[in-house]
């Protein structure tokens, strides 16, 4: 259930300017107030994208490339 809360928080953070400002000023306090788990907060605070992917349940970074040099002329 916490994972859903984490997803909800991240999505809201992308759309809510007031929440975003609070997060920039004191991310730990905002995440604790919302009720994220300690390990989730720790992963996010680490800034390590692999740890964040792990807590979001993403096996690996998805692939996005445009291969312009091989697109037929």
């Amino acid at each position, binding site marked *: 259930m916490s994972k859903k809360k984490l997803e909800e928080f*991240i999505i809201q953070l*992308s759309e809510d300017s007031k929440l975003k400002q609070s997060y920039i000023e004191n991310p730990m306090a905002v995440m604790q107030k919302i009720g994220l788990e300690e390990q989730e907060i720790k992963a996010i605070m680490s800034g390590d994208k692999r740890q964040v992917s792990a807590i979001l349940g993403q096996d690996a970074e*998805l*692939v996005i*490339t*445009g*291969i312009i*040099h091989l697109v037929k002329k």
Partner: protein
Amino acid sequence: MTMSNTNRNLSKEGEFIAVSTGMNLGGQISVIAKDYIQKADIVFALMPHTLAERWLERLNPNVVSLQPYYGVGKYRMQSYEEMIEAMMDEVRKGTRVCGAFYGHAGVFACVPRLTIDKAREEGFRAIMEPGISAEACLYADIGIDPGVHGIQGYEASQFLFYNQSLNNAAYAIMWQIGIVGEHTATQFETRPEWVESFVERLEEWYPSSHEVILYEAAVLPIEMPRIEYLKLKDLPNTEMSTKTTLVIPPIRNLELNIDVLEKMGLKPEDIAHG
């Protein structure tokens, strides 16, 4: 040819709308792009992470990820063809198909453009809605204004393989530096020796000690963008991914073209700045 002209006299049921979702979940999508997603019968998605796919599902429960069409060792043009056909199969059924692509659907993304071309060829309405690309984020995050020095941009491997040229009085942006030299279209990483070849090529315009920037836009609001300053010669030993972009600042000042000024009857002091 305008967008309205290209879609004129198309009477077939079914349509393909390519929308751009921006880089960072719901905060960067346009109002109209969001509306297209919400009103589509089916949404095909190419997103940077699964959380973005789940965010899309909040807008429209009928989301199909295009990510499974990619595969390490699989020729990417084959992946692209399969993505296009999957979306066109739905268009041909007469449904309203939305393709949601992260960043800008028309920038470093051939699938949306090729699908639009195909849909129009077959008589269906097809358009693209623009969005916030990595380039747009780069200007905001690093603080570069393309109007000050000028900007030139290349796909890094294309620049390496072809006889392109650089103006070192302007910024240069090398997209997809993290897969530079990857020539098979089946892998998603580069090799140090390929990066070395790329650096050697750049040394035709810059000293190896020139300071460059590695940039990665944030794709989650909990992330900070990557803005890493390093010397050009250190590039082969630096970690990069498919999202990494190389920014090369200018190394010399702009020079006035005296011949043009004389033809126009102007002197250097006549040129206003600011």
